């Protein structure tokens, strides 16, 4: 039986566009590992569809790209996909990585209480910088890479068979590596202003639940 990865990729604004494109690296990595990828892209990133796919396929990993708040994650047109007080139990049995603002604070805690194996996400805003001149080629955006590569590392590491905690630590090391890069080059124009956003994501990224969980 192949491992199953479910990923949501809603559209709607520039931030989501970048997450959608950078998720292609995760999808490629999953396919290279022989995993089955369930890609809920654009209008498929809807609550009804998500619930149906999870019920039928029981994915090992669920990656949410989208907006969020302390108690919810959203999909296309900011439709709530998971609400802590309504349907968080559908995450039971999966390892979740939410590339989203704030959701780890309440929703993540609730998810692991309701038997999600592990929940990796952010307790405050997920922030990234990008080059306006690169918005038509997000994957070539070196500024965005400073943020989205450490983020992707969670999923890439999970797909390699590492535990949730190991994958979290691997991502943290990527954040730190980029912090060091920027601190060393802090006198290059703009770098000191970038550092605080990298540090913010590093600081608020957490791994909840069973750190030994694997895909």
């Amino acid at each position: 039986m192949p491992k199953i990865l479910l990923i949501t990729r809603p559209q709607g604004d520039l931030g989501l566009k970048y997450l959608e494109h950078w998720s292609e690296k995760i999808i490629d990595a999953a396919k290279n590992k022989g995993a089955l990828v369930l890609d809920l892209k654009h209008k498929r990133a809807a609550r009804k569809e998500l619930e149906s796919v999870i019920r039928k396929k029981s994915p090992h990993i669920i990656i949410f790209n989208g907006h969020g708040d302390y108690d919810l994650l959203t999909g296309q047109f900011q439709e709530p996909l998971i609400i802590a007080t309504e349907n968080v139990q559908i995450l039971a049995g999966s390892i979740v990585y939410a590339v989203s603002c704030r959701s780890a604070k309440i929703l993540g805690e609730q998810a692991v209480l309701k038997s999600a194996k592990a929940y990796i996400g952010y307790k405050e805003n997920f922030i990234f910088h990008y080059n306006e001149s690169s918005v038509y080629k997000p994957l070539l955006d070196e500024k965005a890479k400073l943020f989205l590569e450490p983020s992707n590392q969670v999923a890439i590491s999970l797909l390699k068979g590492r535990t949730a905690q190991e994958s979290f630590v691997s991502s943290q090391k990527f954040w730190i590596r980029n912090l060091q890069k920027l601190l060393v080059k802090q006198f290059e124009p703009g770098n000191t202003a970038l550092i605080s956003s990298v540090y913010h994501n590093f600081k608020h990224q957490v791994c909840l639940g069973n750190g030994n969980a694997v895909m």
Partner: protein
Amino acid sequence: MTEFNDQQLADLSAIVVARLGILSPDTGISIGSAGSFKRDELISHVESKDEIGRQFMEMDWQFLQSLKTGQIYEEINKYA
């Protein structure tokens, strides 16, 4: 959110505006569902100290505190 008095808020706003000002003008910043902002748009939010500006100021404040206390270097060493 950290509580600041008016003077502290004005001082912090000036610092954050100066720090944002050294980013290249074609820098965009995505702050989740609050939206994506061009550098100068974000500077305007910080100058007016509105909700978006306050969120960004808080983030910068936390970073500057970590430099002051040395916490950031402890965190770097933890993963080195």
